[in-house]
């Protein structure tokens, strides 16, 4: 038999002739039959005589020491989660694996990484649960590398900042800001005069996180930026920075609005302060620099609008200082004011920004007394709280007697991270065991149950099941069953890691 390279070579020559066709390739190949016989011989010889070349290389070795594997049952569950591609459940699995110091197995790692790389929100835990095997695979396949923002400051950050495109610069800035806030500010300042308005605003948004008074001189200067969107973003950050000059200025303006009278009625009654609100009569052009918008949105009076913005950016301590009352007392004292609604919205804004539990709770109670409940404001209020305070507020709100089943569910969905077992138990106890019949309410119930099924502590699975079972007349609908199944699956998953 001929040497294979020549058979392969002959096959390539024949292929060239076959491509243009024998009619054009000329007589050298003879009759088609002779040509085909040559092709058959070359093809067979090439396949039978193929000789492998020598390749001495090796892939970089996988890490030999890695975390122990998760229990087999848990690993089987992970495969199932990847089949249904549920991001919440996959992330929960990852958190459990990290908590127990175990990892997913090697063969599943590429499926995890492929899925992870497609997600817009790439939870770092999902990458971490693969252990060092995951790191190793991502060095072999660049598509699976962690995005810059989730890792330590990349090498060459300064070069990327100086020469990169905007999304890359934002990613670098985000990671630098996390590691070294002052360096991030210095980066922004270094190119500030050359960057466009949209970029400047985007960079200021990155600087919102990890802000401190060290940023103030730079931000204060940005209040005089030539672009309005940059000025507004600088004002937003300064307003959220306790002790900033902007906040002090706003607090002084607020002091002119809040009036307190200590009216004494009779000898036996204690002096009860009354709070009056006097919104500004005119717009002071100096306010604009501090981010106060002059033109109100539709439906809001200009004076109330200016007041709202000033109160929202000032220190809450001012109120307690001026009145000597606690938040509950202040809100009671405001009850008679013509501007009570605007004041509450402003206070809710300030309280959620400050994460002030006492104010948030007091405001949440007032909001619940209103019908219909302003869930958007309530949601903003609870978001700023620690998880313990948040759960306390939600339980108290949901316990209000005038709330119906669907409204209670809606309150629970305000807690969008993992529920504590205690909260899960008490929340389920607060839902009336009675059927929901209105189609619109049923739809809301299905949505709420889906959200809750991702957060509720798995220990409360039976209570969750019972509550949903009693909420419909017949057997639970498919979507409700799916929510119940999800909690059961999570309960199993938690057990699988401990067995």
């Amino acid at each position, binding site marked *: 038999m001929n040497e294979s390279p020549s058979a392969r070579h002959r096959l390539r020559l024949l292929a060239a002739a076959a491509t243009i066709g*024998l009619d054009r390739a000329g007589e050298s190949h003879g009759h088609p039959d002779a040509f085909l016989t040559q*092709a058959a011989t070359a093809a067979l010889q090439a396949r039978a005589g193929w000789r492998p070349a020598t390749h001495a290389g090796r892939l970089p070795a*996988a890490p030999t020491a890695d975390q122990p594997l998760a229990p087999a049952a848990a690993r089987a569950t992970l495969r199932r989660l990847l089949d249904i591609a549920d991001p919440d459940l996959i992330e929960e699995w990852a958190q459990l694996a990290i908590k127990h110091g175990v990892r997913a197995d090697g063969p599943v790692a590429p499926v995890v990484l492929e899925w992870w790389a497609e997600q817009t929100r790439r939870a770092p835990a999902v990458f971490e649960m693969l252990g060092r095997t995951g790191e190793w695979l991502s060095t072999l396949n660049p598509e699976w590398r962690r995005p810059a923002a989730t890792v330590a400051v990349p090498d060459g950050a300064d070069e990327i900042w100086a020469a990169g495109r905007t999304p890359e610069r934002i990613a670098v800035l985000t990671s630098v800001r996390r590691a070294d806030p002052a360096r991030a500010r210095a980066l922004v300042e270094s190119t500030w005069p050359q960057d466009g308005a949209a970029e400047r605003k985007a960079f200021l948004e990155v600087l919102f996180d990890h802000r401190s008074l060290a940023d103030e001189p730079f931000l204060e200067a940005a209040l005089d930026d030539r672009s309005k969107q940059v000025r507004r973003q600088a004002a937003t950050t300064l307003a959220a920075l306790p002790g900033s000059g902007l906040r002090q200025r706003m607090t002084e303006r607020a002091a002119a609005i809040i009036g307190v009278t200590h009216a004494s009625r009779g000898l036996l009654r204690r002096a009860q302060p009354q709070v009056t609100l006097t919104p500004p009569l005119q717009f002071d052009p100096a306010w604009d620099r501090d981010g106060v918008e002059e033109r109100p949105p539709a439906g809001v009076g200009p004076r109330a609008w200016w007041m709202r913005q000033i109160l929202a950016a000032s220190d809450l301590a001012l109120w307690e200082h001026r009145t000597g009352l606690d938040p509950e007392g202040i809100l009671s004292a405001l009850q008679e004011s013509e501007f009570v609604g605007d004041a509450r919205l402003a206070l809710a804004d300030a309280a959620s920004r400050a994460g002030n539990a006492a104010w948030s709770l007091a405001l949440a109670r007032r909001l619940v007394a209103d019908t219909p409940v302003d869930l958007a404001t309530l949601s903003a209020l609870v978001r700023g709280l620690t998880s313990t305070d948040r759960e306390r507020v939600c339980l108290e709100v949901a316990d209000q007697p005038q709330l119906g089943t669907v409204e209670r569910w809606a309150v629970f969905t305000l807690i969008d991270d993992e529920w504590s077992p205690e909260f899960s138990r008490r929340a389920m106890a607060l839902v009336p065991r009675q059927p929901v019949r209105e189609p619109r309410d049923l739809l809301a119930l299905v949505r709420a149950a889906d959200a809750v099924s991702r957060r509720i502590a798995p220990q409360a699975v039976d209570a969750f099941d019972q509550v949903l079972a009693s909420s419909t007349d017949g057997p639970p609908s498919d979507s409700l069953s799916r929510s119940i199944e999800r909690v059961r699956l999570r309960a199993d998953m938690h057990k699988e890691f401990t067995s």
Partner: protein
Amino acid sequence: MPEWTSERVLALAPDPSSASAGQSLANTRKWSALGRSDRAIWGLCQGSGKTPYQSRVDLAEPAFKCSCPSRKFPCKHGLGLLLVFAKDAASLPVGDEPDWVAEWIDGRSERAQKTLERTAAVAEKPVDVESQTKRAAQREARVRDGVTGCRMWLEDLVRRGLAAAQADSSADWERAAARLVDAQASGLASYVRRIAGTVSSGSGWDVRATDLIGQLHLLLCAAERLDDLPADLAGDVRVALGRSQSRDEALGSEGVEDRWTAIGQVIEEDERFRVARTWLAGHRTKRRALILEFAAGGQPLERAIAAGAVFEGELRFYPSRLPLRAIVAARSDALPAPSEPAPPLSETVDEGLGRYAEALASNPWLTRWPLVLSQARPLREDAGWLIVDDDDRGLPLRGSFTQGLQLWRLVAATGGSPATIVIEWNGTSALPIALLGGAHGGFLDLASRWPA
């Protein structure tokens, strides 16, 4: 019989969604009237209809039967039932089999018995020689017409040139193929379709197409002088032309007893049917065997042998100059798969290619051949991915494999270190189908999404 584990049960699932659905039924609350005997388990599962589904599993095979309308096999109820059993056998009380269980199992045993009797009877079966000869002659005549037509088509193709044929519509190609199907030469039709698929397959397409053209020419030459060929070779040519083989032909051959390992399983699907190729390797005889299973349309494949399974059994090979395709005439229960691959099964790249060349000499139309490469590792070079053995001999990996996640599962499972890798070799590129041993340990099915 090894103990049932959830992993083992899920390996039987026909697809990921069935595995997932089965797991959601792996809960005693979903079942009523659960029970088990020494050979079967059963239970009732409430579906969307009024009557609950009767689901039962014959533990010996295992085999499944369920009254649900699902076309998946096994269905989610069967998987769920077996998962309940795997999790906690005690949740199925031991009891008498209801009629709907006992009748089915008894029927199965009877059918199994009949197959055995048929095996014995084939040798002595009286044959209507005259009508059989007549049918065969009619068929041969038709196939000969097909061969003539195909010859003309092929010569026309190389005269016009492949570049010109690239512009032909898929309907043109399909018409040529359909004529050959009508002439009962589906093997020729399949060559036409493969050439059609090659002419627009990107870089190197011209060599691949010329390779196929050469193979087709060789087949046509053999078909034209069928009467001059030795009987066994003529038989192989008829099969390559498209004659379908009946089970009885294999049953008539002598049995080969051995301990067999299912070294890999590939399922291919096109719009017409699904094929499961299961490669077996004999531990003592060192023989290779191929079990083919076809399912038309959306019908499920039974896949009686799971990838990685080890069993003692008797194979009967279809007559051929290179007996490869076989049926399982008798088999033991699955034996526990060894954690280390049996050494006699594996080979180096050079040894494997040598066996492939010998196999080609017997059957030049062989399209794929299994290699069990010991101490092999995946390797990336600028030109692409390879499988390289301990002597640093490398086989290029098939492009379709390296573009998908399968490559990464192989890389992750080996950790870049040597392992026993089973591949299908087609003369130019390697398709890894399974991994034995390695960092992962045990058998890893690379042809399915999840390791079994």
